[in-house]
């Protein structure tokens, strides 16, 4: 974008000030006491200068680049009052075993002051497979809750009024199916769709890039997503239809800048797909939300969130011509970095999570999940998840951080780092545009290669001691030290047996005629151009399983196969 020419100001005289300091004060000091060997870089290997001064903001225009909270380009936050108005939503991702176990955990978390639910599904559900699928062997209920059909979903939300909570569901390739089940539960509870508040992750592009939980190839997957966007714009107006996710990109080993760039490139891909499907950008863009990671490097993380808001606002307004300010605002959830936690001395993870959570809050997040200290070992125990929630509550109630809106704005260092990360991300986005957009870039393996490279580089830095991880390559305790020991949650093998029994019963008792008709109608819609959502809704109400619906759609759309990139 064009820069406004500026009169020489005090800031352009200042370099002499910094130069003077270097010569008169710094050099003699360094001669006496040299600095630590470094390198002085972020956890992502982004170089950090010794000292930021106003000289580092020579091209920075506070009116244009920073503005005020709640105003374009939202660098200082999407709400004018931020946490003075309303604290961020404390939303712990949770699910394990069967729907009954998870329903009990949800009721516990709500009773402890949690303000929203976040559903973790087990791996077979995430991959669109039933619990009795041969590939599901050993995975049922292990990483999340097993949901095969509407019957499980009814149990999951039993006694939880859907018009009084907001629910986030981490589900991607089969998102339309689990969302339809949620709608069917709302129907049974007598809750109107326009009272429903929540999010489906529904971000398939990052699956090909990072998380690898795909079913269909990219292009039909995008068609399902645009069908959901169109359906919600009409019928479920408060639902967030996609949570464009950098979290998994980062967990797969990307740098912070790559996370920023590939996530926004995915967002651009979805908006482009919506526009190409004939939707008005302002009809669906306000319902897109984001999901970022928060790793250990405090300033890099909070600057990443500030840069993300600025880039997105400009992309939406300038590139897509969105007119509704709600389309310009990047609202985000943040989760602290699972990959930063250590199995060694796991209690130290509480401290890591605190630093990461604080960065997310100072970066202006709308909701937050703090990881439990034991998550490199197993799903969290109740004690561990309670400490993680208390960490947020201490930041909110005791630290004083939420009292002032975007308190770090104007720091030379923070604004400079924000701008440098923005520029580096824009460079990636430009390269992706030149490849024809994110789908083409993914098909060419570009983000996948960049991430694999970064993750290998980081591991080498750790193995060679260039980057420190306390308890892993520095300050290591002996293997049998008490500090490694922690009680962990065990998932009983009986979960799988019970789930299979329930599924057998469901298949025996449901109305086969209604089921067959619903799936035949769904297949016809998939072959044609009709919106799939009403057909999927009818299928789940006929108690079609997740696996049966996915098998039906695979017959039309095919299955994705990856060329692995080492």
């Amino acid at each position, binding site marked *: 974008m064009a820069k406004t020419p500026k009169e020489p100001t005090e800031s352009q005289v200042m370099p002499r000030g910094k130069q003077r300091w270097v010569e008169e004060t710094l050099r003699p000091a360094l001669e006496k006491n040299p600095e630590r060997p470094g390198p002085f870089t972020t956890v992502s290997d982004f170089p950090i200068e010794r000292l930021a001064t106003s000289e580092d903001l020579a091209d920075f225009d506070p009116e244009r680049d920073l503005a005020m909270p709640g105003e374009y380009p939202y660098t200082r936050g999407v709400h004018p009052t931020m946490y003075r108005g309303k604290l961020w939503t404390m939303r712990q991702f949770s699910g394990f075993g069967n729907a009954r176990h998870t329903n009990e955990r949800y009721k516990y978390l709500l009773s402890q002051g949690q303000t929203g639910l976040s559903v973790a599904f087990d*791996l*077979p559900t*995430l*991959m669109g*497979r039933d619990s009795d699928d*041969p*590939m*599901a*062997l*050993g*995975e049922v209920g*292990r*990483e999340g809750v097993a949901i095969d059909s509407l019957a499980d979903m009814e149990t999951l939300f039993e006694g939880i009024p859907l018009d009084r909570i907001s629910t986030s569901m981490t589900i991607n390739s089969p998102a339309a199916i689990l969302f339809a089940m949620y709608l069917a539960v709302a129907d049974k509870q007598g809750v109107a769709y326009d009272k429903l508040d929540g999010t489906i992750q529904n971000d398939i592009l990052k*699956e090909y890039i990072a*998380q*690898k*939980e795909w079913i269909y190839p990219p292009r039909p997957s995008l068609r399902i997503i645009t069908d959901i966007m169109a359906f919600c714009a009409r019928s479920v107006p408060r639902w967030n239809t996609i949570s464009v996710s950098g979290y998994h990109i980062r*967990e*797969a*080993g990307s740098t912070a800048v790559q996370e920023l760039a590939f996530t926004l490139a995915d967002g651009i891909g979805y908006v482009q797909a919506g526009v190409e499907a004939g939707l008005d950008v302002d009809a669906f863009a306000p319902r897109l939300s984001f999901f970022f990671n928060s790793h250990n490097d405090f300033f890099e993380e909070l600057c990443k969130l500030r840069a993300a808001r600025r880039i997105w606002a400009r992309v939406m307004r300038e590139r897509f011509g969105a007119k509704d300010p709600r389309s310009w605002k990047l609202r985000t959830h943040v989760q602290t970095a699972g*990959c930063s*936690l*250590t*199995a*060694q001395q796991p209690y130290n993870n509480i401290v890591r999570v605190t630093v990461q959570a604080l960065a997310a809050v100072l970066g202006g997040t709308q909701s937050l999940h703090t990881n439990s200290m034991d998550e*490199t*070992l*197993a*799903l969290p125990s109740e004690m561990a998840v309670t400490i993680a929630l208390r960490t947020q509550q201490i930041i909110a109630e005791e630290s004083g951080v939420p009292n002032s809106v975007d308190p770090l704005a104007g720091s030379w260092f923070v604004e400079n780092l924000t701008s440098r990360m923005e520029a580096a991300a824009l460079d990636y986005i430009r390269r992706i545009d030149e490849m024809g957009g994110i789908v083409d870039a993914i098909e060419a393996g570009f983000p996948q290669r960049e991430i*694999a490279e970064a*993750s*290998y580089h980081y*591991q*080498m830095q*750790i*193995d060679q001691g260039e980057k420190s*991880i306390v*308890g*892993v*390559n520095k300050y290591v305790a002996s293997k049998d030290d008490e500090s490694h020991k922690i009680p*962990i949650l065990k*998932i009983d093998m009986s979960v799988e047996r019970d789930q299979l029994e329930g599924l057998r019963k469901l298949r025996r008792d449901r109305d086969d005629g209604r089921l067959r008709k619903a799936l035949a109608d769904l297949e016809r819609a998939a072959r044609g151009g009709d919106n799939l959502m009403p057909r999927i809704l009818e299928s789940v109400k006929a108690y079609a399983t997740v696996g049966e619906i996915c098998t039906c759609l695979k017959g039309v759309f095919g299955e994705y196969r*990856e060329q*692995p*990139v*080492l």
Partner: protein
Amino acid sequence: MSNPYSSQSKSATTATPERKLRLLVGKVGLDGHDRGVKIVARALRDAGFEVIYTGLHQTPEMVVSTAIQEDVDAVSLSILSGAHMTLLPRVIELLKQGGGADIAVFAGGIIPDDDIAELKQLGVLEIFTPGASTKDIIEFVRTRIHPRRS
């Protein structure tokens, strides 16, 4: 000690003068967490071993069939989904049935201590948990994995 990351490193081949060790590195089950396994595969390759990477979503049957066809000396599997108590014993069982009882199996992932003890009893040679360095894994392969036939 020579740099284990250099592809010029000769130490892997001096340990086994007849031929390079052949290793199958893979993901079994639905688990898509492949950050670690890809780093391990690349580090082992750079250390001079022959590495066959299976890619994602392999069944135990697929892994064992590839291991036997490719005549590997060891199978190295990554599991972060909690399914290790089902999938690893199954791979060992199928290797025995398929004439590959002498193919070593080692693994990495999110695997609690209690399970490690049990898996080792069942025949898993070693298990690497979060925080393991590629140096440790390379050293393990050099010292504990031997060619099936000379």
